């Protein structure tokens, strides 16, 4: 970097270095979701993660125009049903205002009281038409709002009554020249005749009420107006006229259409039969060479584009030069360049983001984009914008002419009465005055300055600020409930009670995923003598895996890890012949399917398939009307061509790992390391505690007709399915050589212990076990018992899930529930195969003993960690949190943002989605790419920042935060909430503004139920905590 270029105030914009940096900087604002087949949950506002949460969401509002919190009326509804409590609002407000809470506003009350009133009562507002309608057509000026307490209402009316009847005697000491009194007289002289001025004594209550309100409304209007006169007027921004905006919009549409079409062709991963010719020349050159062709431009717009493309093509400008030229031609000032480039890239954020991802992060894809594609895209976008400007110059001129005609009308409209802004303000004051019981006369005596102060105060507490307070109160309620529930649950020795007295009959190790919470809870309920654990679902095995019928290796580990090891599944040795024949058949079927797939869309192939197409009616009808049966038949057929018995190639023979045949797998020492790490992490490292049967369950989710399928899979396996990891872990832990090494290191696995790997499909709640042939015969009985426990548990868990699906009856039996969820996973028409992480709100890290028997409503990640087995430096915890905090936070924040603004942050409604370029979904026929989560995935989610409860001491946690910048960024920036818990001492500390504050036990009593089903039965809504009695050991 040459300092001279950046330091001098440049007039010519030729410092390319800066430009590419600017583009790269702007690129970070783009959505970071790659191809949809590897959907990885991450913080949607990753670009602003260095800011505190509250500021970041406002930055998101500025950059993406996306709402930072839920809509205000949503919070108000929550307030009405008690999900937000007034007490919480009060405490959040007090905390936020601090010293300034007692500030007096225009002698009407304190700032705190004013703000609380604005939060507590629903103040209506709206645009011009809405407001006029409310004032003219509703009872707004006839009856006090419903929120006003009766005594306040009576007091106000009586006061005015007294005053009106005695108004002739002017209060002494007030000079008659007082302009306010004149104003009042005028209002009264306007108002009184309408009510029959002479007979005010005869007015009934209704008339009085109406009179008071009309008086109040007039006074508010006058007051706001007077305030407006005395405040410094800011000249209104020169905004574009409507007609001009319409033309601009149209321009945006044509430019976007060309770019959408071209981007999707350029990025296509092999869907279109014809590839974009010469795509290897890069985005810019290919675009120019396509659009500079003659005889291709029948409209003025395409014509302009062709002219511009030809000119640049012939000048042989590089993309950078072209960008500089475009910026110059457009006359963008130096200071605005960055903002301009951001705006241009954010015009189609989805496509631009995908180009950036394909260029930087998708070397594994079939057609990654070459480096610099985003810059080239920007260059093309600027060219297209310019061409559109020219092509639409005629229409813009016409629009201006049109405006001259209409401008007269607009002016006359705005002069008539108050401006919209002031009308809204007046209406707010009007409503506040009612609920706060402000006397109209007092209001009238306010000076213009006081009015200005009042209005300033109201404006300062705008909708954004109000929503922030609501949101904090919304989170506070759930946080308080959770922390108190934990304290209450362990008050009478829950921890001791839940500690196993002897060896558990079997142990289940699941992923930390919130969807496994109900499964684990039900297993514990059905068999109280068992134990369950949670660990990140790749079980410490970071590998590239290829199944027996898979074409490629795919990574099964968190995204931030690059695996070194390759593992593949093979048919068992004795069946390898048969398996080869099956592979040949599969290949033939695959080729034929591919041909049919392509052929049905061509001319001749289509003719043939069209004539024979009536056959398609059979699968069509069968799969829609009888999804479960149809899928069984398909699975039976599929079984013919897939090997019946397989094994994992897990032990490596060669020195170094790799993907060729001899290099697959792990060395024994590596295996020992993995097993030791896994067992120690979950605190299963004491010989006496390891039960004879340890079941390791990976998880994933199978659904059909769902482009977002991989978003439902295991987050710790980068959107893959964790079954193979569980299988590999069990195989390693069963290896006697591994056990010998472990014994040397002080971790003795009992001889009679056997590990079994399994795969839990969270969509249809099925469980598949691997390598059962290797199970020792003496354990068969125990395994079968465990299996029946698990079958019962997954049926109950399915029933618990069904309470969330409106299409399932609340009275459904566990067996029917299982059938229901199976049907869902096989149903082509099911837009909600499962609810995935929706409702997730908590993440517990610590011993299961203190959360066991507590009903968590599938809302908590559960990571097992035993501080008593960790060293004094808490190394295990630190290792664990490095993965757990960012991963859980990423999931919860993606859900947060997709929920608060589903259109801007999420991908909107799933129903019109259209898969494009094999990369992502568009909405409808042609639109921007839509990253994020669909409305159907988040509809029951309560957007809150994830609350971590970690079993450790405040000091240890502080140390970990200090030593790990990624964790510190999330916690210090309030992207997650954090509490540390020491159940032995019943001590809970909440992290707040850089330190831990002790939380007092408020002596809450938890509801006690005999089983989960008793608590959730018959209810669909979010449920509170309850203690389940049967699950203690």
């Amino acid at each position: 970097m040459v300092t001279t270029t950046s330091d001098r105030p440049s007039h010519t914009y030729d410092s390319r270095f800066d430009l590419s940096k600017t583009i790269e900087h702007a690129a970070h604002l783009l959505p970071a979701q790659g191809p949809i087949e590897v959907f990885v949950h991450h913080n949607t506002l990753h670009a602003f993660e260095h800011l505190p949460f509250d500021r970041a969401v406002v930055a998101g509002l500025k950059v993406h125009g996306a709402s930072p919190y839920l809509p205000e009326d949503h919070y108000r509804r929550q307030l009405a049903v008690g999900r937000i409590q007034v007490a919480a609002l009060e405490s959040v407000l007090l905390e936020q205002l601090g010293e300034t809470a007692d500030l007096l506003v225009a002698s009407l009350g304190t700032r705190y009281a004013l703000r609380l009133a604005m939060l507590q009562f629903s103040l209506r507002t709206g645009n011009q038409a809405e407001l006029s309608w409310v004032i003219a057509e509703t009872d707004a000026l006839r009856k006090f709002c419903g929120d006003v307490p009766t005594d306040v209402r009576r007091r106000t009316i009586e006061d005015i009554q007294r005053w009106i009847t005695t108004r002739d005697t002017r209060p002494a000491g007030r000079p008659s020249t007082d302009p306010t009194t004149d104003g009042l007289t005028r209002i009264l002289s306007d108002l009184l005749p309408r009510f029959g001025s002479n007979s005010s004594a005869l007015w009934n209550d209704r008339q009085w009420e109406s009179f008071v309100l009309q008086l109040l409304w007039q006074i508010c209007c006058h007051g706001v107006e007077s305030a407006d006169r005395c405040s410094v007027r800011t000249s209104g921004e020169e905004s574009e006229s409507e007609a001009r905006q319409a033309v601009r919009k149209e321009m945006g549409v044509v430019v976007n259409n060309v770019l959408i079409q071209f981007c999707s062709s350029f990025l296509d991963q092999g869907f279109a039969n014809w590839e974009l010719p010469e795509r290897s020349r890069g985005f810019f050159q290919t675009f120019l060479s396509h659009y500079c062709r003659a005889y291709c431009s029948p409209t003025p717009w395409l014509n302009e584009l062709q002219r511009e493309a030809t000119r640049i093509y012939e000048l042989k400008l590089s993309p950078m030069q072209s960008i500089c030229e475009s910026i110059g031609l457009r006359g963008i000032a130096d200071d605005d360049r960055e903002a301009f480039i951001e705006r241009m890239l954010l015009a189609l954020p989805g496509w631009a983001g995908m180009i950036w991802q394909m260029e930087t992060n998708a070397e594994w894809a079939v057609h990654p984009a070459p480096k610099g594609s985003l810059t080239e895209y920007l260059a093309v976008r600027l060219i297209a914008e310019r061409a559109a400007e020219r092509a639409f110059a005629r229409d813009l001129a016409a629009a201006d002419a049109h405006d001259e005609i209409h401008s007269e009308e607009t002016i006359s409209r705005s002069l008539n009465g108050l401006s919209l802004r002031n009308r809204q303000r007046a209406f707010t004051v009007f409503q506040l005055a009612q609920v706060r019981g402000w006397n109209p006369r007092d209001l009238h005596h306010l000076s213009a300055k006081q009015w200005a102060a009042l209005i300033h105060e109201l404006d300062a507490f705008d909708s954004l600020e109000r929503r922030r307070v609501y949101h904090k109160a919304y989170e506070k309620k759930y946080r308080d409930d959770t922390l108190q529930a934990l304290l209450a649950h362990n008050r009478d020795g829950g921890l001791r009670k839940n500690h196993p007295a002897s060896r558990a009959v079997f142990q289940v190790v699941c992923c930390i995923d919130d969807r496994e919470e109900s499964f684990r809870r039900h297993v514990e309920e059905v068999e109280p003598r068992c134990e369950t654990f949670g660990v990140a679902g790749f079980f410490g095995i970071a590998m590239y895996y290829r199944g027996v019928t898979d074409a490629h290796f795919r990574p099964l580990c968190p995204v931030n890890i690059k695996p070194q090891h390759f593992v593949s599944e093979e048919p068992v040795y004795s069946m390898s012949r048969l398996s080869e024949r099956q592979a040949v058949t599969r290949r033939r079927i695959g080729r034929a399917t591919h041909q049919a797939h392509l052929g049905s869309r061509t001319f001749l192939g289509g003719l043939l398939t069209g004539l024979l197409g009536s056959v398609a009616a059979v699968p069509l009808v069968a799969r829609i009307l009888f999804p479960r049966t149809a899928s069984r038949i398909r699975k039976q057929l599929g079984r013919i061509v897939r090997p019946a018995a397989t094994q994992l190639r897990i032990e490596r023979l060669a020195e170094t790992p790799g993907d060729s045949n001899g290099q697959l797998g792990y060395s024994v020492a590596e295996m020992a390391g993995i097993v030791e790490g896994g067992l120690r992490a979950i605190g299963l490292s004491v010989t006496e505690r390891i039960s004879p049967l340890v079941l390791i369950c990976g998880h994933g989710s199978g659904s059909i007709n769902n482009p977002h399928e991989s978003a439902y899979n295991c987050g710790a396996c980068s959107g893959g399915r964790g079954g193979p990891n569980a299988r590999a872990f069990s195989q390693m832990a069963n290896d006697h050589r591994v056990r010998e090494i472990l014994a040397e290191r002080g971790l003795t696995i009992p001889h009679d212990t056997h590990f079994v790997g399994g795969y839990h499909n969270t969509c249809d709640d099925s469980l598949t076990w691997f390598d059962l042939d290797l199970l020792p015969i003496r354990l068969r009985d125990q395994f079968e018992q465990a299996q029946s426990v698990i079958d019962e548990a997954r049926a109950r868990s399915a029933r618990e899930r069904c309470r969330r699906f409106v299409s399932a009856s609340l009275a459904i039996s566990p067996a029917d529930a299982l059938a229901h969820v199976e049907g869902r996973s096989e149903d082509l028409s099911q837009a909600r195969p499962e609810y995935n992480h929706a409702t997730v709100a908590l993440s517990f890290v610590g011993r299961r003993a203190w959360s066991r028997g507590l009903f968590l409503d599938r809302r908590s990640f559960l990571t097992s960690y035993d501080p008593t087995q960790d060293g004094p430096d808490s190394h295990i915890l630190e290792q664990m949190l490095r993965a757990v905090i960012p991963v859980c936070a990423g999931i919860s924040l993606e859900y947060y943002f997709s929920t608060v603004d589903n259109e801007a942050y999420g991908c909107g409604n799933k129903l019109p989605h259209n898969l494009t370029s094999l990369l992502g979904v568009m909405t409808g026929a042609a639109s921007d790419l839509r990253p994020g989560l669909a409305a159907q995935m988040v509809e029951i989610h309560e957007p809150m920042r994830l609350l971590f409860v970690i079993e450790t001491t405040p000091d240890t946690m502080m140390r970990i935060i200090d030593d790990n910048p990624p964790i510190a960024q999330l916690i210090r920036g309030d992207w997650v909430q954090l509490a540390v818990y020491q159940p032995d001492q019943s001590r809970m500390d909440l992290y707040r503004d850089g330190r831990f504050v002790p939380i007092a036990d408020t002596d809450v009593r938890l509801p006690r139920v005999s089983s989960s089903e008793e608590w959730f039965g018959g209810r669909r809504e979010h449920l509170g905590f309850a203690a389940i009695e049967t699950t203690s050991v």
Partner: protein
Amino acid sequence: MTPDEFYYAFGIGVVAAPAVLLAVFGLTSLVGLPLSERSMSKFTEASVVIGLISAVAILGMMLALDDRHVPLEIGNWVAIPQQHFHFHLKLVFDRLSVPFVILSFVLCGTIGAFASRYLHREPGFYRFFLCYAFFLLGMVISTLAGTIETLFLGWELVGLSSALLVAFFHDRLNPVRNGLRVWTVYRIADAAFLLAALSLHNLTGAGDFDGLMGTGAWPEGHATITESNALLVGLLLLVAAAGKSALIPFSGWLPRAMEGPTPSSAVFYGSLSVHLGAFLLLRVSPILEVSVVLSGIVVLVGMTSAVFGALTARVQTDIKSALAFASLTQVGIIVAEIGLGLRYIALIHIIGHACLRTLQLLRAPSLLHDYHSMENAIGSHLPHRKSLWERVLNVRIRHWFYRFALERGYLDAVLDEYIVRPFCATFRWCNRMEKKWTDFLSRGADEKP
């Protein structure tokens, strides 16, 4: 009961089932008692099952009794003797309408079952099923129509519901825009249809297809009008069919219609309403026979559309547009078959194509999944073989074709630029003139300050 009475009962059943469904959906909302999702899907199911059973029963009786042409009169609704006009509802069951009506019931029924789960909890659930009921009734009426007016009635119902469903997500800009575009094209088609109907009345004195096609049952009828008359009416009907079936030059709307929820796209633009134009041509196929020129034009329009569709489908990168153009290809071929007089083949082709395309469109979101399973089966990335075009044509021409296909033949752009824009400009000019004129007139009376 005599066979005729059975025919009558079942015939009424076929039409009444969707009509009652529409009445139930419409009336309950009119009186402010919206039905629950569950009861709406139950009603739909019942209606489709009754309709389907009746249709199959008629088919069975026709086969058993060897009837090939069963007309049913449902009364004269409007009669203006002075003008020699009567509007009577007449249904015809023959070899064309019976398979078509069964197809409609099967596909609509399947889609109804699909949509009742797919649109679960959707705010527009009710609206969708109301449009669906309109569509089903429209399809049944137009397939069974025995007079051209009856056909027009069904045709309009189908058009209205289709356009409304394209604009189903009316809180977004694109669906509304595209819905409007579809509606506009439909109106042009409707206008041509009406003109054709009027000319037919003029020529034959009635709108009955019997009168027009002679006495033979479909497809053996022979038209009784002269060649030049046939050409005129036939061309108008071809415009109507081209609008409805998205043939050239109206093809631009077909991919745009993919804005609605997947099931409606599948059943309407993938399978049923896109074939309605072809059905119309089949219905009036005796006219085509009369005029060789007309047949030639039909074949030409069909083949051009088919080639255009095949070409354009090859460059589409999104699944729904690709399927839309693939549909267009087949519809074009079907129309060409009709022009060539291959009526049974065309009918079989329509049925096969409709079933296949519906399935493909419903499964569209599975595309990635399908690609993965194909890759896994083959054991490598999918082979991308260079097609004949890519091997034979030189680069320049290939570029040109690619661009042509990518821009979808410039059809929409050209229509917008050279038809819509002058049209709008003319009326804007009229508006301005009127304003000036009224200003001029009112200035004397109401002088502004």
